């Protein structure tokens, strides 16, 4: 093996960078939890696992994570196949609406559903269908929690599977159909087996996201008395006394262990499922559904209405009343909340600008890192592949550990002035940016790695034989092939970071607010109506951003923008 011409250097830079952004902050935090009087010790961990409340929370985290990941994978795959392989109409708007739930911060989703189904639901009250006051809320249960986690993560799976379908060589499907395979037989014998790595990637991402989801776990889990690890973390943070950090760090170690176990299983399976394909992004297949098309379309739009309209309307109705708990009528309607967040509070616009800028930068950085790292991960067995796997494992754990804990880790790592430059990033926007890159790298890397896995090694060999160097192989052959997956990943990262609240929870400072922390602060200070108004504005702004991306559609490779054909 010769590692000349920049290949070894590229790998080294990538691995060191990922280690600095994901591994080092976490290692510093874990160190706090695994030392007793300055001596390394597993005592605190053993103690934690021995306690009943920790074991219960651990089990419930795994249970809700697996159930919701399974449901999200099923739902996301069905939706992706319906949109990707059939001739249903209005695909653009449909995909757009399917992705919207992801753009809404999880705690806002939870609030919206609680309001939508509760006795004071502005929508149900106006329709006269609201449950009697004092009746218990159906969403406060394990099933409610799993349902919301599923809805939150279905778009993740949907995007990953859809990106895979785009790279799907038409020849195979065409061959199957020429041989007389009915659509369902083709699906079972050809399409799904080939999609396996992507399904697995989607499942793993949904599971890990559920593990670290704080908003839904807290807002639904606490009233349902269904305690998961993120909630346990919160409780430990809320206790008085000096041993808060070590306690939090120990629970984080547990979460990281669960995430690592999940990733190890995924890697084992992915090796076994690997099928090499070569295909350029091409016109999507459109199996004619005939008279069943209307049924399929109705089903798809019904799903959209159920998941968007009810919570969306609740959110809007809450934003339009004077104080929470009033029904929405001609007398109570007011635009004062919107006026307050848009005109009177300077923080709102600043938060928009900040979040947009750092989410976009983080997405671009992650796309670049993923294209490089994914190559070594999938196509270079042996030492380079192993090094890349270590880096990608760190990224997965950083994503699985709840954002609030990651923000503590980033304070520990970056509060001191950086060596060489002597400036501290703490208290600036930059620390939030690097935290986003560290925490969301897994989101952008997953689809790219799945795309590389399906590439035939003969591409690499052919290029080498022709004397193409590393840089050239990457830029002329692999980058164009994985561009749709990298772009889908980048868009996912952008939309996740744009609205997140937990990672920046402890890193923001005056002047460096993010959208998520602003909404959370309104809600936390008791201004529910302002929080709802701001959330409504955010959803609208997200739609504007997505429409703006449409303008770029002609200039980028086919399949880059997920809701364009």
């Amino acid at each position, binding site marked *: 093996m010769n590692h000349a011409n920049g290949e070894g250097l590229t790998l080294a830079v990538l691995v060191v960078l990922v280690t600095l952004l994901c591994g080092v902050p976490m290692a510093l935090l874990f160190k706090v939890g695994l030392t007793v009087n300055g001596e390394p010790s597993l005592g605190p961990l053993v103690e934690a696992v021995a306690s009943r409340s920790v074991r219960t929370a651990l089990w419930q985290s795994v249970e809700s994570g697996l159930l919701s990941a399974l449901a999200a994978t099923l739902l996301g795959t069905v939706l992706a196949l319906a949109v990707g392989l059939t001739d249903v109409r209005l695909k653009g708007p449909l995909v757009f609406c399917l992705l919207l739930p992801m753009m809404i911060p999880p705690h806002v989703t939870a609030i919206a559903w609680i309001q939508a189904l509760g006795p004071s639901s502005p929508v149900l009250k106006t329709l006269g269908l609201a449950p009697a006051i*004092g009746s218990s809320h159906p969403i406060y249960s394990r099933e409610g929690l799993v349902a919301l986690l599923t809805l939150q993560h279905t778009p993740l799976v949907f995007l990953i599977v859809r990106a895979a379908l785009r790279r799907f060589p038409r020849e195979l499907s065409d061959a199957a159909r020429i041989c007389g395979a009915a659509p369902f037989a083709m699906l079972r014998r050809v399409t799904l087996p080939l999609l396996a790595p992507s399904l697995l990637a989607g499942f793993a991402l949904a599971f890990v996201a559920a593990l670290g989801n704080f908003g839904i776990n807290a807002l639904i889990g606490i009233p349902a008395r269904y305690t998961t690890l993120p909630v346990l973390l919160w409780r430990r943070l809320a206790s008085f006394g000096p041993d808060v950090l070590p306690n939090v760090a120990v629970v984080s170690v547990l979460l990281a262990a669960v995430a690592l176990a999940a990733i190890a299983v995924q890697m084992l399976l992915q090796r076994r499922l690997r099928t090499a394909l070569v295909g350029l992004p091409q016109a999507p297949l459109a199996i004619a559904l005939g008279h069943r098309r209307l049924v399929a379309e109705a089903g798809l739009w019904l799903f959209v209405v159920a998941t968007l309209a009810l919570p969306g309307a609740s959110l809007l109705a809450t934003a339009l009343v004077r*104080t929470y708990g009033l029904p929405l009528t001609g007398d109570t309607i007011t635009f004062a909340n919107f006026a307050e967040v848009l005109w009177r509070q300077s923080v709102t616009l600043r938060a928009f600008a900040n979040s947009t800028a750092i989410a976009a930068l983080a997405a671009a950085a992650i796309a670049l890192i993923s294209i490089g790292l994914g190559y070594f991960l999938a196509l270079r067995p042996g030492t380079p592949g192993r090094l890349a796997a270590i880096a990608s494992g760190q990224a997965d754990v950083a994503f699985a550990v709840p954002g609030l804990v990651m923000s503590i880790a980033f304070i520990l790592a970056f509060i001191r002035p950086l060596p060489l430059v002597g400036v501290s990033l703490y208290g600036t926007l930059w620390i939030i940016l690097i935290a986003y890159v560290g925490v969301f790298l897994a989101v952008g890397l997953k689809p790219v790695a799945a795309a590389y896995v399906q590439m035939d090694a003969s591409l690499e060999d052919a290029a080498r034989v022709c004397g193409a160097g590393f840089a050239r192989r990457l830029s002329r052959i692999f980058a164009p092939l994985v561009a749709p997956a990298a772009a889908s990943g980048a868009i996912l990262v952008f939309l996740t970071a744009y609205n997140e609240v937990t990672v920046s929870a402890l890193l923001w400072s005056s002047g460096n607010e993010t959208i998520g922390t602003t909404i959370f602060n309104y809600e936390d200070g008791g201004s529910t109506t302002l929080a709802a108004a701001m959330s409504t504005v955010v959803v609208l702004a997200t739609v504007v951003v997505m429409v703006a991306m449409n303008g770029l559609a002609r200039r980028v490779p086919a399949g880059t923008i997920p809701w364009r054909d």
Partner: protein
Amino acid sequence: MKKLLIAAAALVAAGQVHAADISGKLVLYTSQPNEDAQQTVDAFKAKHPAVEVEWVRDGTTQVMAKLRAEFEAGAPKPDVLLIADTVTMESLKREGRLMAHDGADVSTYDPAIMDKDKTYFSTKLITTGIMYHADAPVKPTSYKDLLKPEVKGQLAMPSPLTSGAATIHMVAVTSHPDLGWAYYEGLAEQGANPQGGNGGVYKAIAGGEKLYGFMVDYLPIRGKADGAPVEFVFPEEGVSAVTEPVAILSTAQNPDAAKAFVDFLLSQDGQTLAAAQGYLPAHPAVAPPAGFPARDTIKLLDFDPAAALEGDAANKAKFTEIFGG
């Protein structure tokens, strides 16, 4: 003689703080709601225009998490801390993280809510009493009314596991001779389900999911003024209070500005501002805001932050035993 000298020196020092031209950067970490924090900072800056105030607002839990991480890294940033409860302050005091401000004038205040070593100072009273939905069949006036059969299944309360105010309320109520832990066991039998913080309980009751609950005073009092279907009552046994204490960190970069900030919060002007924001001022001579009863009619339950800190783990374990966490 020595004591006299120290007192005299303290007086001189205090005088110097007021006389000196205070300037520079002051970093404040607070858990006040955004608008209130902004108003407080603006009012302080009107008095001390040369001071540049940088402030960070977050829930007490997040503020403390941030601060603990900063301690761990050996670089605490804030000069002044203004958070919800005295128990957290007591814990910081024991770790030697707070600076005493001997020049602070607390002569008009109730000594029960001030630290005798002058390391932290209560600035307002955020009391916890009973909130109920306007359409609720029972109109409670005593804690014991919540044990009536018609209340069963309609109770909400913030959890001491997530809310500092709820912890203090639990300690105060369970130390009351007529209530005690037996009262909390009664609540559990009534199907009370302690969940999250005060905001969640407010929404559960204002939204009609539950009808009664323990709640901090200002949310329902403000909500009612805005037309929300809610009521708040100060029960006859008394209320507990979180007192939003302010403290100067021992690592403060700008102790003079920090002392000026504390003095401002404790001054008549600072207290009037708290009342204008809709809180019960800690200063007995400042009139409470509309919707609150007169100060002398509000009875506080006994509470000792030091003892609460000692018994914190045991109290929470007992609570978890009763309610199953």
